[in-house]
């Protein structure tokens, strides 16, 4: 070795260490906090508070738009955990959205359960279904996993569609929201703005905490190389199933809230494959495998879509699609990842970037 090496027995000494108690670790963590390593948390908190404050001066249209932005922030963060960090691109993630929505609707409509009691059940149903299909499906890799999850979502929609006595089937389902019939009073626009803001913030917070944890590193390791990950002691099956379940929990939570907001909906509404497609596009365009990527992707694309709808009329979908194509060509690794790498290496050339990531 060229460097000054530790003496013989160095290996054993290096691996020796003292154990820290929980309190000791917390104290060490607090001591290690500086503005430089906490600004992201502070920025998140500031944005959350600004969003709360702005609600007071917002017109109803903007409020509605931002409510749907928050919905997609939560969905994109949810998808990113299994699709981005863990590297298992689920093309059926909408199944958890639909299950969450129907759990809330069925409980509130058929059994007069309050919204607050229905939501945890909806999340549990999403998690249970993720574990049930995740254990067999997460053995598949790449395209096979994508196709299998797509199949699971389509199949689940048909099951809900045919369970007419419980779900109302193709006739749809309605949540009683007014009068003595309502298990929980309707939130109204301001209430749902707040609720979706909290769900989105919760999703971002979960992603931020996970990504910095041992579990977060394990997800990245599984993504990069499962054999190597298993070789260093990572239970790859457990990591994949837990990541899928966390992702499902976030999506099911958003679905449950969406159901209450919509009041009345059909299986084709909440099992709409477009939701999955949007989750994937938002994460890929924003930058997968980071917390900021899905956030930027969801906010950017939802605002862009709205802008085009208002200003372009007939051709807005065409232009929206064209913009997505152009962004993917120039930023194959996602906008956030491009700017992070460009800032680090001081290379801002888009053409070089395209060449580097040419498939």
């Amino acid at each position, binding site marked *: 070795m060229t460097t000054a090496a530790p003496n013989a027995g160095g*290996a054993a000494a290096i691996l020796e260490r003292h154990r820290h108690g929980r309190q000791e670790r917390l104290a060490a963590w607090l001591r290690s906090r500086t503005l430089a390593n906490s600004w992201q948390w502070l920025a998140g908190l500031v944005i959350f508070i600004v969003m709360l404050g702005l609600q007071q001066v917002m017109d109803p249209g903007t409020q509605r738009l931002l409510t749907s932005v928050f919905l997609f922030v939560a969905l994109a963060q949810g998808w990113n955990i299994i699709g981005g960090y863990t590297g298992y691109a689920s093309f059926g993630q909408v199944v958890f959205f639909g299950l969450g929505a129907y759990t809330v609707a069925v409980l509130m409509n058929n059994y007069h359960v309050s919204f607050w009691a229905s939501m945890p059940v909806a999340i549990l149903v999403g998690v249970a279904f993720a574990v049930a299909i995740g254990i067999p499906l997460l053995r598949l890799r790449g395209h096979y996993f994508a196709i299998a999850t797509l199949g699971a979502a389509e199949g689940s929609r048909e099951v809900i569609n045919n369970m007419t006595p419980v779900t109302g089937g193709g006739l749809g389902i309605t949540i009683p929201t007014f009068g003595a019939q309502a298990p929980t009073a309707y939130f109204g626009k301001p209430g749902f703005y707040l609720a979706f803001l909290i769900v989105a913030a919760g999703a971002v917070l979960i992603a931020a905490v996970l990504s910095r944890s041992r579990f977060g590193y394990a997800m990245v390791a599984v993504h990069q190389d499962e054999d190597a*990950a298993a*070789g*260093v002691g990572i*239970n790859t099956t457990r990591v994949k199933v837990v990541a899928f379940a966390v992702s499902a929990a976030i999506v099911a939570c958003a679905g449950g809230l969406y159901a209450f907001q919509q009041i009345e909906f059909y299986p084709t509404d909440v099992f709409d494959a477009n939701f999955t497609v949007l989750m994937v596009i938002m994460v890929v365009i924003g930058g997968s495998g980071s917390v900021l990527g899905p956030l930027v992707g969801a906010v950017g694309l939802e605002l862009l879509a709205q802008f085009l709808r208002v200003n372009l009329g007939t051709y807005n979908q065409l232009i929206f699609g064209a913009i997505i194509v152009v962004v993917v060509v120039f930023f194959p690794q996602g906008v956030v990842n491009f700017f992070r790498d460009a800032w680090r290496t001081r290379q801002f050339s888009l053409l070089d970037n395209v060449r580097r990531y040419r498939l």
Partner: protein
Amino acid sequence: MIARQAAAGPAILEVRNLSKRFGGLWALREVSFSVGEGQILGIIGPNGAGKSTLINLITGHLRPTSGEVLVDGKDITGARPWVIAHDRVARTFQIVKPFRGLTVRENVAIGAMNGSDPDSSVGDALATADRLLVLVGIEHLADAAPSQLSVADARRLELAKALACRPRLLLVDEVMAGLRHQEIDAAVELIHRLRDGGITIVVVEHVMKAIVSISDHVLVLHHGTVLAEGPPREVLADQRVVEAYLGHRYARRRSP
């Protein structure tokens, strides 16, 4: 080096009649051997002899067709790789497998977070990683991406990742292939130091020079079976080993 087998402690790794069949091909057939605690066992053999298959069977990356693997007397045959890693068996891969998208330091820290007796926090694991990078001599590359590393440094990273799992038994798969002379010397010295630190080591290697200087005991695999076994110099003088490596004609010319 003199044979240390007699002096070595009780068997930490014992392989009994291990076989692996891929379709109609026996990659490994009825292989048995044991490694004493604190020993360095060298496994050599021509391409396709079954060396990497053997390692994959021991670490659970492949399941044996028949036979047993015991670590410290405990039967681990067919267990999942992470279970075996928690039993303090670590390995490197012949084709290096860094976790891209993470720094060199984080790559090593993942081993420290998940191996046997893991660090309980990311911070502790990163500190362990820093110490290991010094040990293998790539601490100046801690913040680099694995893709920026030279062949020799990538191999050192593999070794550091395995060491971070706090192994008692380390399986090293061709860690010296493609290295220059100086780099091989450094790797040999490092492996000796690891053994002196209390780790039992199995080295699979192509490079003859390295095997002779490194091993207490050598096992020669050929067509999936054990061709010869013993102290390095004796084994390398064995007529059958010379034939297997260099062909019949060379062996005839050399022998009187």
